[in-house]
C-alpha cells in the first residue's frame, strides 16, 4: 500500500489505531498541523486551561482504566508545563503518552521561537522519550511509545514532533508487532516469575509464624486484586495496602490492616515492624513506608515481587527476589502453595500472631477528637460523612497534604481503581484535573476530589474545562486556611514557629470562585451542615460542585512517624499515647 498522507494525519490515525478515545490538550504553533486532522477524527479532545491540567487528566484517566492517558500540547512553554505531570506519572508508574510539538527540524538548535530541548528536559522524568526526525517515523514511534508505556513497569513516554514532520507527506505503513519488537532489541520485560524462586517463596510463606502481605501499586498495575485476595485468604495472612495500593484489597476484609507508613495506622506499621516475613507484592520500600531503613522490620525475611529488576535490592535486600508481573506471580504462588498443601505440607501456626495483630487493632483504631459544639469542624468528620453518603463505586481523588492523608485514612476503599492520588511526587494541584480525567474515563461513576485550600489554588481553573466540556465532578475543599501539612511540621518540629504557611480563611471566596467557573458552590461551617451539603452535592449531576468545608486549622494528622525516625517511634494521637506499651 502506498497511500500518501501528512505526518499529522499519520499521527492521528496512529492514535486511533491504538484505540485512543480521548486526548487532553491545548494547541499552539508547532503542534497546529496535528489539530487539523483531529477535527475529522472520532477521538474526543478536551481543551484544558493549562497544560499541567492535561497531564494530570491523562494520569487520572490511566489510573481508573489502566489504559494510557494521552496529552497533546505544543512546544516550548507547553512542553515545560508538562514536566510536573510527566514526573508525577514516572514516580507512580502511570502509563501515559505525551505528544509535544517542536520547532521544524531545520530550526532545531537555533533558539527558535518556542524552542526548548524537550527530550533533554524530560529525559529523567519519562520511561522513554523520542524526537521524531521525519514524517515516516511517526507510526513506528507511536506504536513503540504505547508498547513501552503499557508493558513492564508502566510509565510516561514522550514523543516530540517537529512541525515539518507533521506537515510533510509520508507513505503510510502501520508496523506489525514483530516490527515493533525488532525495533526495540533492548526492551524485553520479564513478566513470568522464576519458578524456583516462587517455590522458595511458597516455602518461606508456609514456614512463617508472623507473615504480612505488603501490597503496593504494582498489584493494581497488574490488575491482580482478585488473585491477591485468593492468596491472602489461602494463607490467612494480614494485608497492608500502601498509599498507592488503597483499594487493591477491601478495607472491610477481616485480614485488611489498612495503610502503613508515615501516616499509616498503628497496627499496619507495627505488624510490619514485628513481622518475620514481609511478602512485598509490587511495592518499593519507599522511605515513607520504611522510615529509617536500618530499623525497618528488623526480623523480617523478605519476598519481593516486582516487575522492575532494579527495585530488587535497591533499598532492602530480599531473601527471595522475584522479577515478574504481580498477577502472574501471585497466580503461580497460589498454585504452588495449594500443591504443597495437597501434598501434606502444613502451614505454620499463625494464630498467636493473628491475635496479637487484632489486639493492636482493638487498642489503636483510627481516632480523632470529635467535633465539639461551637468549635471548628473536624476534617476527618467530613471525610467520614463523604464516604458514608457516597454512591456505590465512587472514585476518590485527592490533592497533597493533610487532606490527602485524612482521605486515605478515613475513606473505606472496597474496590480497586477507586483511589487516585499523587504518591511518589506529592504534587499539589493533582486532584481536580485527575478527577476530571477519571470522570471522562468513567462517566458512570461519581467522582469526588478532596482538595486542600492550598492545592485548589494551583489547578482550580480546570473546573472551567469541566464545565465547558460537561464533565461533572465534585470537589470537597478542606479549607483550614493553611498549608496545613507544612504547618503541622512547623508546629511539631520547629517550635511552633510558623513561617509562610498561613493562607487566609476568607480569600479566595471559594463559593464565588466556583460559581464563576460554572460550578455550584456550597459553604459548610458547622457539623450540622455537613450531611445536607454532601447530599445536595451528590444530587447534582449536570454540573460540577464545589463544597468548601471550613475546618479546624489546628488539626494534625496522626499517627505520624517523623522523618528520619524509625517506625518504632511512631507518634500516636495524644489520646492514645497512654496505651503505647501495647505496641511492644
Amino acid at each position, binding site marked *: 500500500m502506498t497511500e500518501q498522507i501528512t505526518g499529522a494525519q499519520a499521527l492521528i490515525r496512529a492514535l486511533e489505531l491504538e484505540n485512543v478515545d480521548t486526548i487532553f490538550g491545548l494547541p499552539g504553533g508547532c503542534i497546529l498541523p496535528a489539530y487539523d486532522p483531529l477535527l475529522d477524527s472520532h477521538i474526543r479532545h478536551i481543551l484544558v486551561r493549562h497544560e499541567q491540567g492535561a497531564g494530570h487528566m491523562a494520569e487520572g484517566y490511566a489510573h481508573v482504566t489502566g489504559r494510557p492517558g494521552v496529552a497533546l500540547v505544543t512546544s516550548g512553554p507547553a512542553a515545560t508545563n508538562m514536566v510536573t505531570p510527566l514526573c508525577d506519572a514516572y514516580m507512580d508508574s502511570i502509563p501515559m503518552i505525551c505528544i509535544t510539538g517542536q520547532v521544524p527540524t531545520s530550526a532545531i538548535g537555533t533558539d527558535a521561537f518556542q524552542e526548548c530541548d524537550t527530550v533533554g528536559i524530560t529525559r529523567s522524568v519519562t520511561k522513554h522519550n523520542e524526537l521524531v526526525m521525519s514524517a515516516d517515523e511517526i507510526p513506528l514511534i507511536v506504536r513503540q511509545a504505547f508498547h513501552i508505556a503499557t508493558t513492564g513497569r508502566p510509565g510516561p513516554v514522550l514523543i516530540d514532533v517537529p512541525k515539518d514532520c507533521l506537515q510533510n507527506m509520508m507513505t503510510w505503513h502501520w508496523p506489525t508487532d514483530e516490527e515493533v519488537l525488532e525495533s526495540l532489541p*533492548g526492551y*524485553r*520485560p*520479564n513478566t513470568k516469575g522464576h519458578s524456583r524462586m516462587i517455590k522458595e517463596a511458597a516455602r518461606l510463606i508456609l514456614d512463617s509464624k508472623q507473615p504480612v502481605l505488603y501490597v503496593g501499586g504494582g498489584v493494581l498495575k497488574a490488575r491482580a486484586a482478585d488473585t491477591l485476595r485468593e492468596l491472602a485468604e489461602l494463607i490467612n495472612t494480614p494485608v497492608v495496602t500502601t498509599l498507592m495500593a488503597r483499594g487493591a484489597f477491601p478495607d472491610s476484609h477481616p485480614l485488611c490492616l489498612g495503610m502503613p507508613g508515615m501516616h499509616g495506622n498503628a497496627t499496619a506499621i507495627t505488624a510490619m515492624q514485628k513481622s518475620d516475613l514481609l511478602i512485598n507484592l509490587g511495592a518499593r520500600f519507599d522511605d515513607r513506608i520504611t522510615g529509617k531503613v536500618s530499623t525497618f522490620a528488623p526480623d523480617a525475611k523478605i519476598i519481593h515481587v516486582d516487575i*522492575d*529488576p*532494579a527495585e530488587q535490592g535497591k533499598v532492602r535486600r530480599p531473601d527471595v527476589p522475584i522479577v515478574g508481573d504481580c498477577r502472574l506471580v501471585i497466580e503461580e504462588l497460589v498454585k504452588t502453595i495449594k500443591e504443597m498443601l495437597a501434598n501434606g505440607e502444613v502451614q505454620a501456626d499463625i494464630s498467636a500472631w493473628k491475635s496479637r495483630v487484632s489486639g493492636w487493632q482493638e487498642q489503636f483504631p483510627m481516632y480523632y477528637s470529635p467535633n465539639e459544639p461551637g468549635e471548628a469542624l473536624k476534617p476527618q468528620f467530613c471525610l467520614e460523612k463523604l464516604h458514608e453518603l457516597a454512591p456505590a463505586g465512587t472514585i476518590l481523588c485527592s490533592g497533597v497534604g493533610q487532606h490527602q492523608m485524612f482521605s486515605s485514612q478515613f475513606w473505606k476503599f472496597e474496590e480497586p481503581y477507586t483511589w487516585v492520588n499523587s504518591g511518589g511526587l506529592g504534587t499539589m494541584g493533582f486532584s481536580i484535573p485527575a478527577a476530571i480525567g477519571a470522570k471522562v474515563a468513567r462517566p458512570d461513576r461519581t467522582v469526588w476530589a478532596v482538595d486542600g485550600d492550598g492545592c485548589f489554588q494551583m489547578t482550580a481553573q480546570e473546573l472551567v474545562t469541566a464545565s465547558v466540556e460537561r464533565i461533572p465532578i465534585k470537589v470537597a475543599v478542606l479549607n483550614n486556611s493553611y498549608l496545613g501539612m507544612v504547618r503541622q511540621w512547623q508546629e511539631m518540629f520547629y517550635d511552633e514557629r510558623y513561617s509562610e504557611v498561613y493562607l487566609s480563611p476568607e480569600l479566595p471566596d471559594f463559593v464565588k470562585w466556583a460559581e464563576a467557573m460554572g460550578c455550584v458552590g456550597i459553604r459548610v461551617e458547622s457539623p450540622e451542615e455537613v450531611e445536607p451539603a454532601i447530599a445536595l452535592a451528590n444530587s447534582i449531576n449536570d454540573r460540577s460542585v464545589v463544597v468548601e468545608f471550613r475546618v479546624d486549622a489546628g488539626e494534625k494528622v496522626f499517627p505520624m512517624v517523623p522523618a528520619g525516625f524509625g517506625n518504632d517511634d511512631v507518634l500516636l494521637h495524644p489520646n492514645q499515647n497512654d496505651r503505647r506499651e501495647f505496641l511492644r
Partner: protein
Amino acid sequence: MSMTPNTTSMPSHHILSVLVQNRAGVLARVSSLFARRGYNIFSLAVAPTEDPDFSRITIVVDVESAPLEQIVKQLFKLIDVVKISELDPRRSVERELMMATVRVASEDRGQVVELANIFEGKILAVGTEAITVSLEGSPDKLDDFEELLRGYGIVELQRTGRVALPKLDKEARTRPHKNGKAS
C-alpha cells in the same frame, strides 16, 4: 568525552561494556542516568561496533558511589541499552591512548625521546621548546609514562579513557548480566 584520573590498582573500579542502539541521544541518556542517580563515571569511551546499528560504550565506574548491581540494573532500564557485560579486569585486555606535549629545551629533548622509545611510544611533533608524544597501552603503563613526563613539565595532556574486550583465553571471560531486560 573522557577523563581518566591516575589509577594503578583499581579495586573500586569495574569495567562495563554496554552495547547500545546507535541512535541520537543515547550517550546523553547513559550519562544523564549516571548523573541523576549519583553514580560516578571514571572514564567513558564510545564508538560504533562492527555492526553500524550498534555502538559500544566502555564505562569504567567507580563502585564506591553505588553498588555495581544497581548501576547495571538501572542502565538496563534504558530502552536503547541492548546488553551489558561486566569485564573482569583480570580477564580482559584494556587499552588507552594518551597524547602529551612536554616543554623541553632542545638540549634535553633526547631524554624524552629515549623515554618514549622505552615505552614504545611515538613522537608526533617536535618544536624548539616542546615535543608531542603519544602512547597506546594499558592504563597502568600510561600512568607510569605520565608520571615520568611530569618531571619535564606537561603543557597539555589528553587521555582517551579505556576501551576493553574480554581476553581470548579459556572459557568464560565475560559475565553477561542476565537479569533479563529491565522493564
